[in-house]
């Protein structure tokens, strides 16, 4: 919302000493932020002048040498404009003048002295949409009665200042100069001046010539009046200047008046050419696929969600958004029907979102005050009579189903104090309400406050408390420590511990996007689920909520590898999303790890292999209390994106909670190892607890043995046989050497076995007995033989 200082000054006296920035900052202090606050024309040293002489430049086919009277002196100025001539009143930029295009300096132009510049309107930096062709093609020609040597910006009427406000969506009332005046009045404790609504009517009654039929609940108020015999011409300067400062292009007096009144009151108006309209207006919802050609010449296809204004046969306007082409006010329009109405704000919002956001729709969307609807149509008549020579037909067509009234709220000072946490007395509260233009009655125990309907944002006590806070100064509230019961705070320690554990193991945490391409969502998993996609994605690359995190981690790997960083050990904890068979949306916490390249660094560098990532997995599962409760299984849970020979399902207590393995060569040509654990599933499984075990006071005995077994025998198989044969005395098994291919198709596996009893010292003999039994069992069960060096 652009606020012109001149415009608002029509309704409130602002101290001349206040700079435009002062005013903008004061408004920010009560909650109305601004983008910029500056003069409408950002130029210096512009004066009015008169061209006394104008001759052709001796060395140029288009330049002229002029003598220009600027009041105090007569300057030689070279000018290239085609329309420069003797006797013209002009805008002169003096030596040192700052214009948007740069600074003006005196100098020589092709050998002729030039001590300034004669300016066009375009050169003053006015927005292009306000420029007529002549404003760009030549220098500006001021009226002949312009005084010479005065401030040219003032002479143009552009001596205005503008604040560009960024308003909050609840303050629709501030989309009007009057609303702004009330707000400034509350800040500076000034009264808002009355708006001139006086005009005379003829003896006819519009209701005898014209009817309005409202056929929808989406219109709560509809007023119509008629103005006849209008003269379409250029608007008076003050209207044009205020429109330009407010960002609206002047067109002709009639159109300009409708915009001017909208800016003043916040109530959008629509004018119809009465002679092209007929004698009836119908307000109704559009039919599906109904078409309407709007003012801009475009054919719009409508639906029942849209509100239209129509005559007996067809729609003539899209309510609240844009008028129709067929009844547009044109140069030859004589008689007009004025519409001032309130349409459903949500419907207007939907339609305007679909079709066009306009100054009008923006105001309808925020909700309007019915009092202003009446005020606007009267104001419009007053201005049309005065500036378009209109005769106003008596009477008004009136449909009023509005339930908007002044708010009536009781409030206590204690409540205000308890919410704001400030000490404020009744007198000050009453003064604040009165400055805001509210009516206050002091009922001793409480205050009764009547809030005019222009402030539709105020409905309840808390809204009034905010008003007190705003005007009192929210920032004057002093911070204090809340007095609260002492209670224990808490957070998800497990999740944090997992992250820290993984970082401690040398992994780097990543954070990637939840949204991935739909083509990837079913990869890296064998789970069956319904994927969750977006209605209106920003791109096809981000149209689906991920289920597995591994797609993202592999993308991160590829991104970094392409930048010559192939050594990647990363993890991420994030949600995976799906829809279950009952149609319910679910999200589960997942942990994904990806490792590739070097893990140990410098001259000790070591390439990541399966056993590194398996180590990470085991460390984590151990840390979380799942020691002895998990196993790696080769089953159909392993997704096809993993190498079939270098992968496994992670199974805890019989539940597949994750996968681990090398990426399939079809997915990555590099040695990339990944793991993903469904933490929601895992953490639901019971864990062992960490408890102190009595230390054995009795020494144990170590025995080493190496077996030669078939290459196909797994370490786990050997361990299981040893463990079973070892019985209670065998307390630890550790593989410490592995030689592949010691013989054709056979490998050697060396184990260190530890025997101990918590209650006594073991005899060598009994240990040998167990040890021999272990050897016998491994040899017979796994066709192994003991390796004798």
């Amino acid at each position, binding site marked *: 919302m652009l606020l012109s200082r001149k415009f608002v000054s029509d309704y409130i006296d602002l101290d001349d000493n206040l700079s435009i920035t002062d005013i903008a900052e004061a408004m920010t202090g009560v909650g109305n932020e601004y983008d910029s606050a500056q003069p409408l024309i950002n130029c210096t040293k512009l004066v009015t002048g008169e061209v006394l002489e104008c001759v052709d430049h001796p060395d140029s086919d288009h330049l002229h040498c002029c003598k220009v009277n600027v009041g105090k002196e007569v300057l030689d100025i070279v000018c290239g404009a085609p329309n420069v001539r003797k006797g013209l009143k002009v805008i002169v930029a003096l030596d040192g003048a700052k214009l948007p295009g740069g600074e003006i300096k005196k100098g020589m132009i092709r050998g002729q002295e030039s001590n300034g510049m004669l300016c066009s309107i375009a050169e003053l930096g006015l927005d292009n949409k306000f420029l007529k062709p002549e404003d760009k093609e030549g220098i500006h020609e001021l009226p002949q009665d312009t005084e010479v040597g005065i401030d040219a910006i003032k002479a143009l009427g552009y001596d205005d200042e503008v604040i560009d406000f960024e308003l909050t969506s609840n303050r629709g009332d501030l989309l009007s100069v009057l609303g702004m005046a009330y707000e400034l009045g509350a800040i500076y404790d000034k009264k808002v001046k009355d708006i001139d609504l006086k005009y005379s009517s003829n003896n006819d009654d519009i209701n005898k010539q014209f009817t309005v039929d409202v056929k929808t609940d989406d219109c709560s108020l509809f007023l119509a009046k008629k103005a006849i015999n209008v003269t379409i011409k250029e608007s008076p300067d003050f209207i044009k200047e205020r429109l330009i400062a407010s960002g609206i292009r002047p067109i002709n007096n009639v159109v300009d008046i409708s915009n001017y009144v909208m800016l003043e009151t916040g109530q959008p108006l629509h004018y119809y050419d009465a002679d092209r309209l007929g004698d009836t207006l119908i307000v109704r919802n559009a039919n599906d696929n109904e078409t309407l050609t709007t003012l801009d010449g475009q054919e719009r296809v409508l639906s029942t969600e849209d509100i239209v204004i129509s005559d007996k046969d067809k729609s003539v306007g899209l309510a609240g958004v844009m008028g129709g082409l067929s009844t547009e006010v044109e140069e030859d329009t004589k008689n007009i029907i004025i519409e001032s109405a309130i349409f459903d704000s*949500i419907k207007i919002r939907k339609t305007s979102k679909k079709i066009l956001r306009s100054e009008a729709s923006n105001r309808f969307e925020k909700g309007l005050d019915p009092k202003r609807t009446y005020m606007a149509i009267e104001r419009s008549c007053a201005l049309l009579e005065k500036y378009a020579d209109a005769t106003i037909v008596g009477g008004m067509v009136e449909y009023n189903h509005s339930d908007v009234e002044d708010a009536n709220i009781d409030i206590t000072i204690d409540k205000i104090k308890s919410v*704001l946490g400030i000490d404020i007395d009744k007198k000050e509260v009453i003064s604040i309400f009165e400055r805001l233009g509210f009516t206050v009655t002091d009922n001793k125990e409480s205050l009764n406050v009547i809030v005019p309907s222009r402030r539709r944002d105020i409905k309840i006590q808390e809204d009034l408390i905010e008003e007190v806070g705003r005007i009192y100064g929210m920032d004057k509230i002093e911070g204090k420590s809340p007095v609260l019961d002492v*209670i224990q705070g808490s957070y998800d320690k497990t999740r944090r511990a997992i992250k820290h554990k993984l*970082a401690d193991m040398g992994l780097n945490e990543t954070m990637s996007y939840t949204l991935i391409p739909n083509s990837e969502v079913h990869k890296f998993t064998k789970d069956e689920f319904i994927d969750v996609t977006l209605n209106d994605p920003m791109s096809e690359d981000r149209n689906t909520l991920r289920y597995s995190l591994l797609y993202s981690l592999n993308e991160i790997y590829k991104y970094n590898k392409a930048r010559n960083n192939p050594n990647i050990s990363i993890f991420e904890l994030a949600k995976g999303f799906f829809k279950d068979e009952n149609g319910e949306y679910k999200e589960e916490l997942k942990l994904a790890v990806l490792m590739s390249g070097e893990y140990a660094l410098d001259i000790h560098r070591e390439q990541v292999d399966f056993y590194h990532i398996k180590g990470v997995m085991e460390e984590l599962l151990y840390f979380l209390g799942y020691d002895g409760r998990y196993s790696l299984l080769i089953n159909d849970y392993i997704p096809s994106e993993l190498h079939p020979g270098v992968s496994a399902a992670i199974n805890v207590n019989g539940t597949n909670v994750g996968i681990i393995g090398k990426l399939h060569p079809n997915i990555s040509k590099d040695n990339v190892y990944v793991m993903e654990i469904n933490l929601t599933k895992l953490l639901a499984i019971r864990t062992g607890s960490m408890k102190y075990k009595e230390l054995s006071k009795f020494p144990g005995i170590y025995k080493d043995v190496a077996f030669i077994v078939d290459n196909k025998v797994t370490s786990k198989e050997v361990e299981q046989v040893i463990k079973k044969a070892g019985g209670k005395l065998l307390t630890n098994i550790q593989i410490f050497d592995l030689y592949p291919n010691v013989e054709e198709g056979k490998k050697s596996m060396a184990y260190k076995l530890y025997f101990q009893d918590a209650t006594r010292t073991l005899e060598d003999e009994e240990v040998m007995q167990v040890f021999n039994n272990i050897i016998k069992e491994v040899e017979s069960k796994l066709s192994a033989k003991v390796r004798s060096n």
Partner: protein
Amino acid sequence: MKEKVETILTELKKDIESVKTPQDIVDIKAKYIGKSGLITDLMKNMKYYSPEERKEIGQIVNVAKTEANEIITNKEEEINTAILNEKLNKEAIDITLPSKKIKRGSLHPMTRITEEFEDLFVSMGYTVFEGPELESDENCFQKLNLPKGHPARDAQDTFYLKDEVENYLLRSQTSTAQVRAMEANVDKGPIRIVCPGKVYRRDEDATHSHQFMQIEGLVIDKNISMADLKGTLEIMMKKVLGEKTQVRFRPSYFPFTEPSVEVDVTCFKCGGKGCALCKQTGWIEVLGAGMVHPNVLTMSGYDPKVYQGFAFGTGLDRMAMFKYNIPDIRTIYGNDIRFIEQFDRKDDE
């Protein structure tokens, strides 16, 4: 006898000069103080002396033996030290060679900033409460006093799910966790929570990412005021941005709080003097806050006549960007390992 002793000791002092090895020590011990060493031998013919003489001789010999022992022991220590030093010298390594290290891990800056906020609030008795990222329109908007068609919904261009427009969405604000927390509290008693988490909006540029993180705070009790809110935010902003940080309230509008404020902090870069970061204002807008709207309390089963409370919400990404001086939010989610690896130390206190 005295002369004899003197002679032997003089000889020892001469001999000891040539002692070089542990074996020399063994030899010299044997020669002087061993079982049949020169000094020991002096005691051998004692039976021929009177008891008085024996006593005198005994004393002289003992003194001599002590002295001899000391001379030899000193030498022995000297030799042992030299041997050890030589051994240590030989064992010297090139300490400038690289260490044996595994990769250095790191926690993502967003994790770090989240933990910083969590720790602060947990220390003040808050519970970290997290709701789902995939939310219903009802929880994310309607129960926060944003009915369908509300103009403030525009500010949050929302990712609705397919076939679920105005029904299910990726949450656009962590404020939705307020609703979850209030509904989960069956006693409808006091609440003190913070809710950090991911949120999603249709927006993408240097300062906006379609996915980002917020933290929401909510305190509901019987005597909670805007002053309590300001005091709490002062503690929070000082902790995150430094002790000198000041907090400023500006009135604003959010549908779920009334009154509402936007909160500025003094620019931590220029200290409030004005710089490019704060656009010469000395202040930076960091969060939105206010007193929980009575409609929001009522919709989640709280009686606004009994309870009132404050809520605040801020973007964690911006906090991380401030704290670690990260200029572009896209860096945070870019996952360039050269970026991620930088967050590998403890934070400054």
